[in-house]
């Protein structure tokens, strides 16, 4: 165990990225993630890296595309309206199979919405967002320590599978200060023989997402789906909290919401309710394996900081075996511990 330091979530994203070997950041200002670019604007020149403020979210994601073509670890960050603008670029990154990390410190929408925390971009992150059939490895942290761990993991998985990854936090985690252990972390940065570096001593390399011939385009799609199936098989991550053979009620929540839901589960257990919790860490691939045995469960409650998004994936995996209920609040409002506890009590009826 290394020494613990107190860090703000947004700064932890920057620190973790640098520790993961990321030396290139392109971004555009937006609340509530502004501490991150400010942190990297200071840090990057000190470690021989590049920080560049782009003229738009669209330019930023395309600079990321260029740097990824050149074979370096690269990141951008934004918040919900800005991430909407990046969707074109994200689709191209997925099509061209470029490893990058995109951070979304979510705020409430739709439209300009508000700057308060939200989980309303779940669909956008895990179901596509941009055009075409593609998936993003999507990671949801629940603490500042986990921000550090998942940013590093995000870079590693993006490189491993040669695909863009999404780090999906929310405004509360971005602003939260907690002690973290930066630990000893050595990223295995792989050789990228496909990257554009100048064709000295080899045949030319090409990076593109266009296959004008439909047979070739379908082949590329099938290749992508095979890769996604591999990710689905290998990379499901979640946390079990009191989820054992005797649990009768299960709460499913991720990110900031899972912290509140855990408190509600603890209180419910104090009341003698056999409550438990699953916290998905990978939102895509959704941790289906966590639900392989529903054991003694009677009902599931999904709690989100939105009007019901992840609940659809829970219902898909539960597939009618037991009832799945939903509770959520939107617009930057949090379900409270008391409200969540009330909903858990309601499951018994």
């Amino acid at each position, binding site marked *: 165990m290394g020494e613990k330091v107190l860090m703000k979530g947004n700064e932890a994203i920057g620190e973790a990225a640098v520790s993961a070997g990321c030396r290139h950041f392109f971004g555009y200002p937006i609340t509530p993630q502004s501490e991150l670019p400010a942190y990297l604007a200071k840090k990057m020149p000190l470690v021989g890296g590049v920080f560049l403020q782009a003229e738009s979210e669209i330019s930023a994601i395309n600079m990321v*595309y260029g*740097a990824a073509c050149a074979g370096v670890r690269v990141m951008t960050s934004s918040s919900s309206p800005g991430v909407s603008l990046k969707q074109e670029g994200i689709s191209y990154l997925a099509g061209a199979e470029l490893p990058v990390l995109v951070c979304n410190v979510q705020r409430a929408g739709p439209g300009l919405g508000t700057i308060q925390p939200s989980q309303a971009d779940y669909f956008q992150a895990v179901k596509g967002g941009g055009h075409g059939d593609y998936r993003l490895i999507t990671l949801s942290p629940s603490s500042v320590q986990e921000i550090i761990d998942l940013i590093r993991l995000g870079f590693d998985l993006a490189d491993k599978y040669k695909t863009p990854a999404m780090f999906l936090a929310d405004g509360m985690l971005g602003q939260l200060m907690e002690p973290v252990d930066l630990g000893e972390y050595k990223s295995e940065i792989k050789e990228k023989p496909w990257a554009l570096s100048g064709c000295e001593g080899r045949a030319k390399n090409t990076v593109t997402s266009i296959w004008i011939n439909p047979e070739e385009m379908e082949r590329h799609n099938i290749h992508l789906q095979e890769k996604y199936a591999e990710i689905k098989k290998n990379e499901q991550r979640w946390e079990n909290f009191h989820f054992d053979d005797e649990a009768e009620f299960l709460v499913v929540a991720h990110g900031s919401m899972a912290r509140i839901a855990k408190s509600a589960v603890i209180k419910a257990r104090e009341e003698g309710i056999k409550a438990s919790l699953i916290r998905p860490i990978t939102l895509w691939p959704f941790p289906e394996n966590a639900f392989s045995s529903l054991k003694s469960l009677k009902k599931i409650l999904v709690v989100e900081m939105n009007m019901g998004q992840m609940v659809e994936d829970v219902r898909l995996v539960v597939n009618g075996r037991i009832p799945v209920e939903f509770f959520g609040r939107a617009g930057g409002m949090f379900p409270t511990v008391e409200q969540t506890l009330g909903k858990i009590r309601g499951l018994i009826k």
Partner: protein
Amino acid sequence: MQKVFEKPVSIDEKPFSYCAGCTHGIIHRLVAESIDELGIREKVIGVAPVGCSVFAYEFFNFDMCSAAHGRAPAVATGIKRARPENIVFTYQGDGDLAAIGTAEIVHAAARAEKITTIFVNNAIYGMTGGQMAPTTLVGQKTDTTPYGRKVENQGYPIKVAEMLSTLEGANYIERVTVISPAHVNKAKAAIKKAFQYQIEGKGFNLIEVLSTCPSCWGMSPIKAIEWLKANMIPHYPLGVYKDGAKTE
């Protein structure tokens, strides 16, 4: 027998897919010759646009990627910032550069990005079948201006070389054309110089090349050259608009 003329090494084997009489082929060749002569083929990274030259990465024989529509200057910025030792260029048409990608090119120039842009202006969208471009002349008929471009409806064409040369970050901006051997020679010198500046660490560099589109203009190649001479050159005067090395 002595070989007196051959394909540049920087041109690949794939036959060009451009229409008969289109000047993209000439411009590709000038880019390739310049790169060969400067000895930088193995250091070059090109960025292809969306438009008629979307497959440029198949025609050039060096590292290339394709960018989303209009985003080539941002992609090139990412590449150049990651690999400052490489020579990075974008090859873009008028719709790509002066409509959907206006922000990207203006800010790449403003940042004095150490890149080179080959801007092919043929006053029309060719790939999509001949719609109005940001550089379509007033009165010019296109698919989407069937009665001719009208100032009260579509406003005025954008003069890219003039506009970008107002930016302090622009190092070298020249407008050329390729409608005669003399013009081709001048265009070649300009393109080569735009790469030479980047080798010297100077940017931003852009060469605007007035080009023909016989297919979408609905003209024979010869008629298209006459039309360009009579209509485009008066509106888009040829010449050097910015040469940082001279004015510094």
